């Protein structure tokens, strides 16, 4: 499926006009993107480090995981909305950028992993799960979100 028409449309959309013409607006949206990133990254780290038994050992891991999901969702939604706005400024450049597609693929894997693998698995009592599976889930989760963040930064240098 060729997504070029979408990127072409985005390049000439109202969003692109605003993001290209008003640097201040772009900067504020970028700030929200970074805020969402820190929120999401923080929730991922807190949850996964708890699963690895490295932090907050006195709080049951089920409680920690349940409390991180809500703010993870807020962080992800903030990043997606602000990310679409930011990409409108350079949409055609991004379309031809290999690292952008690496990031989008990793993001799709990350979202699939969170909602269809990690969440259903961890919704059962953690005592009923093999510790090795819990640890593998935590390591994979951190690897996915590290790849998304790193490939996102790499876009600017490729």
């Amino acid at each position, binding site marked *: 499926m060729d997504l070029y028409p979408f990127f072409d449309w985005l390049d000439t959309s109202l969003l692109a006009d605003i993001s290209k013409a008003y640097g201040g607006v772009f900067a504020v949206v970028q700030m929200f993107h970074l805020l969402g990133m820190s929120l999401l990254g923080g929730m991922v780290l807190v949850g996964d480090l708890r699963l690895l038994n490295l932090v907050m050992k006195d709080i049951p891991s089920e409680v920690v995981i349940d409390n991180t999901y809500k703010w993870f969702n807020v962080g992800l939604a903030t990043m997606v909305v602000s990310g679409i706005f930011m990409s409108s400024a350079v949409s055609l450049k991004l379309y031809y950028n290999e690292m952008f597609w690496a990031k989008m693929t990793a993001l799709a894997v990350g979202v699939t*992993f969170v909602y269809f693998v990690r969440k259903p*698995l961890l919704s059962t009592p953690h005592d009923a799960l093999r510790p090795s*599976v819990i640890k593998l889930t935590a390591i994979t989760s951190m690897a996915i979100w590290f790849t998304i963040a790193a490939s996102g930064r790499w876009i600017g240098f490729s």
Partner: protein
Amino acid sequence: MANTTEVETTAPNNRRQTFTVLFCVAVLGTFLWFWGEQIAEVIEMLELAYGDGS
């Protein structure tokens, strides 16, 4: 009766855990290959720019 209930509750759990392990191994394997390629490319560029040190 207790044993039957245990079997019923752990069977989906086992399937879910097996699926999770397969998913994780596939993702981690792909990432290892991906980052290996990126790092190899960077090393190649550094060698082109600065030589291989010999």
